[in-house]
């Protein structure tokens, strides 16, 4: 029993340390990367993998089903909401020209935005309101 709990502790601590290290890499990437999209690439790293690792470590360490379910809820919520917010921020960043275009390898939106102006129909609330 004690050997098993020691193994569980080692696994949990390894998960927690890996999650903390991902948080550090997110900070370094946020400071060093050149524009909004690449900073978002660095900053979203602990948002998914780091959160999952920390939640797994916490669920191992905290004995009790209630805490484990709540940590699972946090992890699932992060997985659901991180793509949504990243999509919205990156779309606004592209439209406001906060993107270093000389660093892009492929820019498929450059040709597409010649014809129609702002209203490209991603969602109706972004278009001109009927008035």
């Amino acid at each position, binding site marked *: 029993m004690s050997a098993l709990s020691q193994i569980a502790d080692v696994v949990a601590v390894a998960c*927690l340390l890996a999650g903390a290290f991902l*948080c550090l890499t*997110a900070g370094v990437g946020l400071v060093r990367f050149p524009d909004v999209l690449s900073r978002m690439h660095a900053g979203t790293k602990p948002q998914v993998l780091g959160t999952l690792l920390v939640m797994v*470590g916490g669920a191992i*360490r905290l004995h009790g089903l209630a*805490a484990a379910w709540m940590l699972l809820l946090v992890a699932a*919520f992060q997985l659901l909401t991180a793509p949504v917010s990243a999509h919205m921020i990156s779309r606004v960043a592209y439209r406001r020209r906060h993107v270093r275009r000389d660093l892009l390898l492929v820019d498929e939106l450059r040709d597409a935005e010649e014809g129609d102006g702002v209203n490209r129909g991603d969602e109706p609330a972004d278009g001109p309101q009927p008035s």
Partner: protein
Amino acid sequence: MTVVAVIAHALLGSGALLALVRLARGPSLLDRVVATDTLLVIISASLAVHAALSRDPTVVPVLVVVSLLAFVGSVSIARYVGGMLLRSEREGRE
């Protein structure tokens, strides 16, 4: 376990400090949004690390609130900036 706590909190704290540097220096509003998002994630991760290392599940409901807050904040600022963009391009066109 104390050594692990010191190492983990040092990693999390330096990550949060670097996110704060980007939050202060960020040239545009969207950089600050990304930095705030990352900072809230780091805060929730450090709360979870603290709860796990001290085996104390008191702060676990705070994690749900912090992750909700990060999502709502970044999405609302993104929509606000998008609205500014729409208005300014329309004014430029007419």
